[in-house]
Structure formats: structure tokens, C-alpha cells
């Protein structure tokens, strides 16, 4: 095993089961002779309920809570006995506002809930609305949406990686990952003219086709990106500090994780290979060749490994999507939802009336309801829409993955140290815009 100045090679071994029947992993380090030996396992943290307890408040204005989350902790010494989260500081009533908006007018709101994953939200909402309208999108649009979804997954995971590194005490990977993220923002800027609030899709198509030069930029990104990932991998995966601060924290068993409704990397780190892209496919994801990484221990370290591998897999999907990108129209040929071309709308009376009616009255889906879920970077993101036949939904419900994932935090942090609460909270990958909506 090669050791460098900065990192110590660490192996992981399962040394047995703890009192709760969960596997206990201890890092192995090299002794003077180069043999791997187990680090002395820390004594089990059993809170002493008889002693004096302390109430401590973290947040809502605290950088390590990733937004405006507030955690009230009951501490016994430094051990968490109970955790009571408070949310809602960012509540804007998106679902209420959606009842007063036409379907295409809701798309800008979807940018603002999970703002690290705006293109993915736009696509998810458009898919839900299209099922409600009974629209089949064009092949080119399907592939463009896959590109948008995977780019936004990479973007979101990179933010997660950077900020979690900062929480745990590593600064450099933050710079590397934000540098790559900037490249994606540049591409989105080329595509729709916005970086954060993209509003990329419309019901039945996209806001715009990709511009000239986009595919070249994407191709060079795909080629370069794995190198950055390998650097982060070298820096963190076998780093003794990183391993020591993440292994064995916030463990969820598979049954527990399913029962708590976790999704996304949180669920897969616990050993449940549930990925909406594989199990309830959309956008022809079943025709792409990619793997679903699954963890075995359900701790913070496994969540990191799962997300790191997902970045590689997203890159693979992008490569395949770019190769198969077909020519043809982006928008469906459906006058109910799609506007006539601008030149026609300003020169022909019928097209102008058509344009006016689609914009002012809005498309009307038939009476019905639809729930469409996609695999967002945080987990299963679903949009549930109910139509009563008018141009505005009766109910627009967001199924927020980080809301459900966060609801398991009292379970995950109990019995851990206060400093581990930060690592566990970071591993959930919360975005408060989505939790509070």
C-alpha cells in the first residue's frame, strides 16, 4: 500500500456487530511495520439519563444547517438524547400559489423550490403536466430532458460534496467541485440564458433548443469531469480524517430506511437498490446503460460513496444521451399547448388569435389526476396534480424528498456526539427551499 504525505491508507473492516445488531466498522491504519491494524474502537455512547441535560439550539442562521433549519437538541454531556427539528422558516406557499397559476406559469416556481436542481424540477413538472394532458413528447425533447436531468444531478451532488467537505473540515474539494459546477452553469446560461432559475421546460416541449456549440462544450465537460472526480476520490475516500468522521454515523438499516420513506442516495446507502429511473422509468431511462450504486452499511460514509459513484454514472448517461441525440422538432405538434411561431403570430390573424388564447386562457387538461415521480439528486421527487378541467390545477402537490429524508434525523442522531450531528445533517443533502416550499 502506498502512502503519501497527505493521506494515510485506510482499510475498512467489519469487526462485528454492536448492541443494536448493526455492523461496526473500524478503520484500519498502518503500524510502523506497514501492517494494517484496527484502530481502538471508541466506547459505545450510552446516554446517562440520570444526569443533568442541556437544551441547545442550532440555527436557523447557522452555516452548518445548510439553510434555515433549526435543530433543538437535548444533550447529555456531548451526547444527543433527543433532537427536535423546526422547519418552515422559508415557507412561501408554492402549492397555494400554484392553484392560481396556469400550468406553464407554475414552471418558474419549480425552479425555486429545490434551487440546486432547477432543470430537474422543470422536467419533472413538465412530465407530470404532460401525463395530465395526455401528451407524448418528441424523441429529441426526451433526450434533451435526460441531458438536463443528469446535468442537474451532477450540479446538485457537487454542491453536496463541496459543502459537506467544509462541514467536516476539508476545504479543497469544495473548490474543485464548485469549479466543475461553474462549467455546467455556463452551459445552462448558453441554453436558456439563466443559471439558477432556468425554467427550462414547457408543457409539451422545451423553452429552447440547444444552441450551436452546446454539444461541443458538453462533450469536453464529459471528458474532463471524471478527472475531477478521481481527484476528490483520491483526496477523501481513503483519508483517515474523513473516514474517522463519517464511518458508523447515522446508520439506517434497510427496513428502517424504507419505513421512514427515505429515498435517493440515503436509501441506496442503506442497501435498498430503489432508483425511480430503473424501477418506474420515465424519459426512456430503461434504454440507457448505467448502474445503481448501493451501500452496505447505511452510514454517512456510504452515502458519500454512493453519491460519488452516481456522479460517474450520470456522466455515463450524459455520454450516451449525447451520442443518440436525434434531429427533429423539440416541441410536440399539439396546438392545445404549443404556441405558434412568433413570425406567424405577428403576421397571420388566426395564429395571433391562437397565440392569444393559449397565453391568456391557458391550456385545459381533461378532468383527472397524475402523480409522476422522478429521481432527483435528493431522492424521489414527485408532482401530484389534480385537474378539474380548468386551466389551473385544483391541487399541485410537491413530494419533497429532502423533507421526508430530514424527518428521519431525530432517529439518526440519537446517541451520537454533537459534532456528528453536523456530519449526519450534511449527509442528508437538504435544500430548505424544497423542505419549506
Amino acid at each position, binding site marked *: 500500500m502506498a502512502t503519501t504525505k497527505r493521506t494515510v491508507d485506510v482499510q475498512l473492516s467489519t469487526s462485528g456487530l454492536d448492541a443494536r445488531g448493526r455492523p461496526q466498522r473500524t478503520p484500519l491504519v498502518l503500524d510502523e511495520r506497514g501492517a494494517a491494524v484496527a484502530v481502538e474502537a471508541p466506547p459505545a455512547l450510552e446516554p446517562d439519563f440520570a444526569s*443533568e441535560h442541556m437544551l441547545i439550539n442550532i440555527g436557523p442562521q447557522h452555516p452548518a444547517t445548510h439553510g434555515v433549519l433549526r435543530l433543538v437538541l437535548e444533550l447529555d454531556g456531548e451526547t444527543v438524547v433527543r433532537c427536535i427539528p423546526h422547519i418552515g422558516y422559508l415557507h412561501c406557499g408554492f402549492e397555494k400559489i400554484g392553484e392560481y397559476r396556469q400550468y406553464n406559469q407554475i414552471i418558474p416556481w419549480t425552479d425555486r423550490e429545490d434551487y440546486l436542481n432547477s432543470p430537474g424540477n422543470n422536467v419533472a413538472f413538465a412530465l407530470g403536466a404532460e401525463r395530465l394532458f395526455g401528451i407524448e413528447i418528441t424523441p429529441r425533447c426526451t433526450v434533451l430532458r435526460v441531458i438536463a436531468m443528469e446535468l442537474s444531478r451532477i450540479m446538485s451532488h457537487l454542491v453536496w460534496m463541496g459543502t459537506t467537505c467544509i462541514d467536516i473540515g476539508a476545504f479543497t474539494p469544495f473548490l474543485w467541485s464548485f469549479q466543475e459546477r461553474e462549467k455546467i452553469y455556463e452551459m445552462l446560461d448558453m441554453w436558456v440564458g439563466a443559471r439558477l432559475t432556468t425554467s427550462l421546460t414547457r408543457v409539451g416541449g422545451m423553452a429552447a433548443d440547444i444552441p450551436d456549440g452546446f454539444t461541443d462544450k458538453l462533450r469536453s465537460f464529459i471528458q474532463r469531469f471524471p478527472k475531477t472526480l478521481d481527484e476528490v476520490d483520491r483526496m477523501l475516500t481513503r483519508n483517515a480524517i474523513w473516514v474517522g468522521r463519517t464511518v458508523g454515523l447515522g446508520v439506517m*438499516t434497510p427496513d428502517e430506511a*424504507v419505513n*421512514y420513506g427515505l429515498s435517493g442516495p440515503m436509501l441506496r446507502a442503506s442497501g435498498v437498490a430503489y432508483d425511480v429511473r430503473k424501477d*418506474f422509468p420515465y424519459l426512456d431511462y430503461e434504454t440507457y446503460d448505467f448502474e445503481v450504486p448501493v451501500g452496505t452499511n447505511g452510514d454517512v460514509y456510504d452515502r458519500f460513496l454512493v453519491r460519488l459513484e452516481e456522479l460517474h454514472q450520470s456522466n455515463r448517461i450524459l455520454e450516451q444521451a449525447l451520442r443518440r441525440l436525434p434531429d427533429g422538432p423539440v416541441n410536440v405538434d399539439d396546438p392545445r399547448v404549443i404556441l405558434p411561431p412568433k413570425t406567424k403570430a405577428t403576421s397571420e390573424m388566426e395564429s395571433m388569435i391562437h397565440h392569444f388564447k393559449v397565453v391568456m386562457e391557458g391550456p385545459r387538461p381533461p378532468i383527472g389526476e*397524475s*402523480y409522476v415521480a422522478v429521481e432527483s439528486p435528493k431522492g424521489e421527487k*414527485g408532482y401530484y396534480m389534480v385537474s378539474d378541467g380548468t386551466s389551473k390545477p385544483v391541487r399541485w402537490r410537491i413530494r419533497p424528498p429532502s423533507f421526508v429524508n430530514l424527518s428521519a434525523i431525530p432517529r439518526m442522531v440519537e446517541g451520537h456526539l454533537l459534532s456528528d450531528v453536523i456530519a449526519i445533517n450534511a449527509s442528508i443533502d437538504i435544500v430548505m427551499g424544497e423542505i419549506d416550499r
Partner: protein
Amino acid sequence: MSDAFAIMRPGFAAPDAPAPATPRAVAHRDGAPNPGAAALRARFGPAIVRVTVVWGETTVVVDRQRALEVIRWLHDDPTQRYDYLVDVTAVEFRDTEQPLEVVWHLRSLPFRRFLRVKAELDTKGGAALQVDSVWSVYKAADWMERECFDMFGIRFAGHPDLRRILMWEQYREGYPLRKDFPLRGRFSRSEQLRQALAANPESRYSMEELTIADAYEDLPRDMRDRLGRGERTGE
């Protein structure tokens, strides 16, 4: 490695099922219903009010008194195994004649199935909006039911800690997602500001937190006096 951590692959209970694929040309009505619907009819009979298939998604409307029983059976029965609660929410229609609906979205990971269960609540006549909580079956229901209570005022009987989640505990304007709630809220901006400025520090904490072990003893005297008089909002 213990069996508790054996990797679980969705679809393992139905190995002969066709590979999942993107749905195409989905009919608006009269698609093939989920096999769970027929099984529920056979098992519960009159408790199943109706079964509809819209855009390929099966909806089973059940009697609200027996909703928990139905969902527990769907979770436990080896031929159904709906082990994943996707969502708990409610729908109120603009048409006041239509009842308010509580919606549970369930997934069966072992069979790769999706089912929507609904219970109808009558909003007329001032009857209490109440259904049984499914928290005893799915821990995921905890915050979802709290949100549903917060936004619609539906009481989930049996929930361990049913209080507001997105709005603050002293919020008095009602239930924001009900159709009779105006988009701008019920109170004027000046009234909202007055309430915010009048709030005491203790209103930021729930009673549960304020009574945690020794924390109560450490509170300032004026705070303890107010709490002793039962004042929470500072008005």
C-alpha cells in the same frame, strides 16, 4: 455481514414480471387496474367505495373509518407488500359539493407497483375532519401528516405529535391550503407584523422543549412566570 444489510432489489417478489419501461400511449380512462384493487374488493367488500383508473394510475376510494385497516393490510399482506409510503396529502375541490379527499400514495418495492388510496371527508355540516393516522404502519407518515394537518386542518387520530410544522405553533389564521383561505392570508400585514413583534422568546419553543429535564429551571424568571400563567404568545 449480517442479514439485516443484505441488499434489497425492488421487484424481487415478482421475478417473472416484464421489465419496467417508460409508459407510452396511456389511456385517459379504463386502463388495466392494479391487481391490488381486485384483492382489496375481495378482502374488504363494502369498505371499498369505488376503483378508478385515470392515466394508468389506479385509485381506490375507501371508507374513511377503515382506511387505516386497509392500508395496514396492504402493507402486511404477502401478496401486496406496499412497504413504501410515498406521500400523504389532501385535495379540496373548488366545487364545494365535492368532498375533501385524503390521499395516500403507496409503492410496493418488492412488486414494483403504485397505488393511490383515498378517503373522502365531508366538509359540510361542520363535522370534524378526521382520519386514522398511518404512523403506526409507516414512520414516514410523521411529518407528512403534520403538514397535512397544518395545511388542511385534518386531524390524524393516533399520530404521536400532531402539531403545525411549516407554520408556527401560534399561527391563528387557519389552514392555508383550504379553498376558503384567501391567497393573501386572512390577517392584514400590520396585524401580522404586530403579532411578530409581540412574540415572546418562549413562543419559539414547543412546550415539550421547554419542559425538557432541567432546561425549565434555567429559564429567566419572567419567562417562567409567563409560562406558569399559560401565556405563550406575549399578547
